[in-house]
């Protein structure tokens, strides 16, 4: 399977995503330059973390106009899998691939720390390798991760099982103190209505090796592999 990692000017987790696919998954990965109109026959697109266009204006607001986004949106509309991580999540929201927006963290500070996530729906193409309500440990590193959407939209997400990850404490409880950025309903990750576009603020590509603290992110990549290959 081939993963295409999009490099926007200011992307800085493109390398991590690329290495994750090759080193931890043993699959193919290519970098896709944002000025190109060619996804190089990638099966899965990763919109990586970073500060595309310096987060100027609003995180993701300029990157959504990058040439390559035309093809990324087409790929998503065709049902192709898209993993939008951190800044990628922000870009996906700006591009209309996912509902809602990511606001400045409630603390007004950048937060870099390992967090606990609960799998809210293990029946997606990104989470099938996990158990429902399993708690995994994955790092976050962002200044604008406070997920927000209208109450109606949040209810819709909730009702359709589209909330995939929530911030929880070590026991798996949804608490305020476990919410690192003030996200509505402790939301850490969602999928679109069709289930093929995932947006999440935490970095699963940084949690693939116990040497670095956790391998809990591996399940995400394995889920995609089994679902897309099947």
């Amino acid at each position: 399977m081939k993963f295409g990692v999009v490099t926007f000017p200011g992307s800085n987790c493109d390398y991590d995503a690329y290495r994750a696919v090759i080193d931890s998954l043993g699959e193919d990965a290519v970098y896709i330059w944002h000025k190109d109109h060619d996804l190089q026959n990638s099966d899965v697109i990763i919109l990586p973390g970073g500060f595309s266009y310096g987060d100027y204006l609003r995180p993701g607001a300029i990157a959504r106009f990058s040439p390559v986004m035309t093809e990324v949106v087409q790929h998503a509309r065709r049902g192709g899998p898209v993993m939008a991580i951190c800044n990628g999540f922000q870009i996906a929201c700006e591009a209309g691939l996912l509902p809602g927006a990511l606001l400045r963290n409630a603390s007004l500070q950048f937060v870099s720390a390992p967090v606990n996530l609960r799998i809210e729906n293990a029946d997606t193409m990104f989470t099938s390798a996990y158990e429902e309500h399993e708690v995994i440990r994955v790092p976050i590193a962002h200044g604008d991760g406070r997920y927000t959407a209208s109450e109606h939209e949040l209810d819709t997400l909730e009702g359709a099982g589209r909330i995939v990850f929530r911030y929880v404490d070590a026991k798996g409880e949804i608490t305020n103190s476990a919410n690192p950025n003030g996200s509505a309903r402790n939301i850490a990750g969602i999928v679109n209505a069709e289930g093929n576009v995932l947006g999440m603020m935490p970095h699963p590509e940084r949690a693939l090796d116990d040497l670095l603290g956790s391998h809990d992110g591996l399940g995400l990549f394995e889920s995609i592999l089994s679902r897309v290959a099947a």
Partner: protein
Amino acid sequence: MSDVAPRPGDPAVTPELVAEHGLTSEEYDRLVRMLGRTPTFTELGIISALWSEHCSYKHSRNLLKTLPTTAPWVLQGPGENAGVISIGDGLAVAFKIESHNHPSAVEPYQGAATGVGGILRDVFTMGARPIAMLNSLRFGSLDSARTRYLFAGVVKGIGDYGNCVGIPTVAGEIVFDAAYEGNPLVNAMCVGLMHENQLIRAKAEGVGNPIIAVGARTGRDGIHGASFASEDLSEASDAKRPRVQVGDPFTEKLLLEASLELIRSGHIVAIQDMGAAGLTSSSAEMAERGDVGVTIDVSKVPVRESGMTPYEILLSESQERMLVVAHKGREAEVRTILQKWDLQAEVIGEVIAEPVYRVTEGDRVVAEFPGSRLVTDCPRYSPPAEEDSAIAALRAVDVASIAELEEEKDPAWTLRQLLSSPTIASKRWAYQQYDSTVRTNTVVGPGGDAAVLRIRGTSKGIAVKTDCNGRYTYLDPLNGGRIAVAEAARNVACTGARPRAITNCLNFGNPRKPSVYYQLREAIRGMGEACEVLSTPVTGGNVSLYNESPRSSVYPTPVVGMVGVLESIDNVTRSTFENEGDAILLVGDTRDELGGTEYLATIHSTIAGQPPVCDLELERRAIEALLEAIDAGAITSAHDCSDGGLAVALAECCIANLDAQLGADVDISEVFTGASRSAFFGETQGRYVLSSTNTATVEKIMQSHGVTVTRIGIVTPRSNGLKIRFNGTVIDSDIESLSSAWHNSIPSIMSAPAVAEDPEPAMTVV
């Protein structure tokens, strides 16, 4: 030589103007002799920057020469943008530390951010990809609203810049002491990785090769930043805020990628950051290293605004710019690479055979210096040195006679006070704002002794740390210089890495004062001795003098940035206890050493006494023994015993890992005879707290190196608390109260307001 006439519109060069440029009359005479005529305004500006302390090292160069700089693994010593060492497997590490003290004192956010940007550029211009950032910070007391403003601003500036570029900030140190009130120290270190054959030096070569300005446009910001950094801070310094540069980390990220692509392309000969003194110093330094002439046409430099004079263009410190010498005929290729990253590249000059440094504005020559030694032909000084008798008297104070406070009858109270002292307390409040895991190599991040990064594609890792105890150096500069190196080496060795080389950042006061020059001389001597004994040569660094404000002169603070190599990343060792039932061992002897300690400073507000003495030969043997024991797999955790002494070190081993706190039951009656406070809180050097399941092996290895090791206790469940017995006295505390003291201190202090305005009444302008 060309005719150089004053440029219409430029001010006449008068003695007042010369003085304003910070040149002494002797230095001005030297300039006139060099030119054989009166300098133009532009030439005066150039020399004022190049001969500033910041660029010329005129008061430190004679001392720096004495430091050891070579070893078989050193590929590049001092004199380049960064030092480089080989770590085997064909790989090399480039690293350097630099100060941004003065800018951060007047504009903390931009001052710190551009400090990060500058040091990043120094490392990637060597051809290395930056893989880690560290920073060594010092502020006044956090009780001051102004200090909280500076601290918060500096931390945010470091975070916003490094996070955006995508380089993990993994380690460092933060110290709070009234001595840094009004003059905080902000030292940033960058570490980069490359293949040995990718090393490139900033040496202009090849007559006819084009000189190209790359990156951001040149504006009017930061003009004379280098000179600003070379004078004492005063109340008038705030008016010099425009001399602080403004950073754009997004452009930096593009420049980083473009520069590495340029270097790998083979189209260029040399590349250097336009850092302090901008275009002037980058072009002069590259010309000097290559022993060639250069000519620069300022009218070709891309500028942000029209009407900039040659003087302004030459001395601007606008950020995110590079100067490149390309192979002749490859200009288009260079431009193509820059265009890919939406950056500019303009040919602004060329390497010439004639041995001159020439600046033109179109056809008009506005500056011309003979020879190519503009930078090293600066004056050098070895001023008088004499210890301040008041400091000698402080050192002679008999601190053992200082009466204990009533509260100290319960030494657990004292321990909690120390754990909550901002210098010792957890710095999570700061480092949680730094992305420490991007690039997915961080094995041990901030909060441990040293940070550890894996080296992908090998079994290796590197450990990095900055250290310095300014209080020791103030009371005893020779010893303080030794300890800065030894402590950094201990921290690196605790992870299982062999200390390999250092970069240093010497933060001192005004060297024209004999007492300051004495401190500088002695501290450098101490560092040199330690580097020699520990086989960790100096590969470069930075000197920041004139760290004085009307309110204080900083402690002499020779910060050391150490890099070590772990042959096997599987041996990486962490600082906190891991298993109930493990034996706790103390490595090293404990002596009655209370002078200059955190205990005296925090509990008794006293800065006095003879600081702990550093025995370098013992340090070397302990490091060898520790590394051997770690290699043998006999050690579970290793923690350096430093600020706050043994009691604080033991407490940190129990509480630092919030996810897995443990207790300990310890008896130190055997290791020391003397006062209990010296046993608990004395800061004897060369000590480590280890936990182990295999004490026999550890003891055997330590003995074979002639290093003292004592089994002092056992790791217990968290609910048993921390017990440290010393004869009849016991520290007996639950873990929660120690943890709360250590983890919550800085967040709680930082919840108080922070204000930019100085709350104190205005001081006399100096």
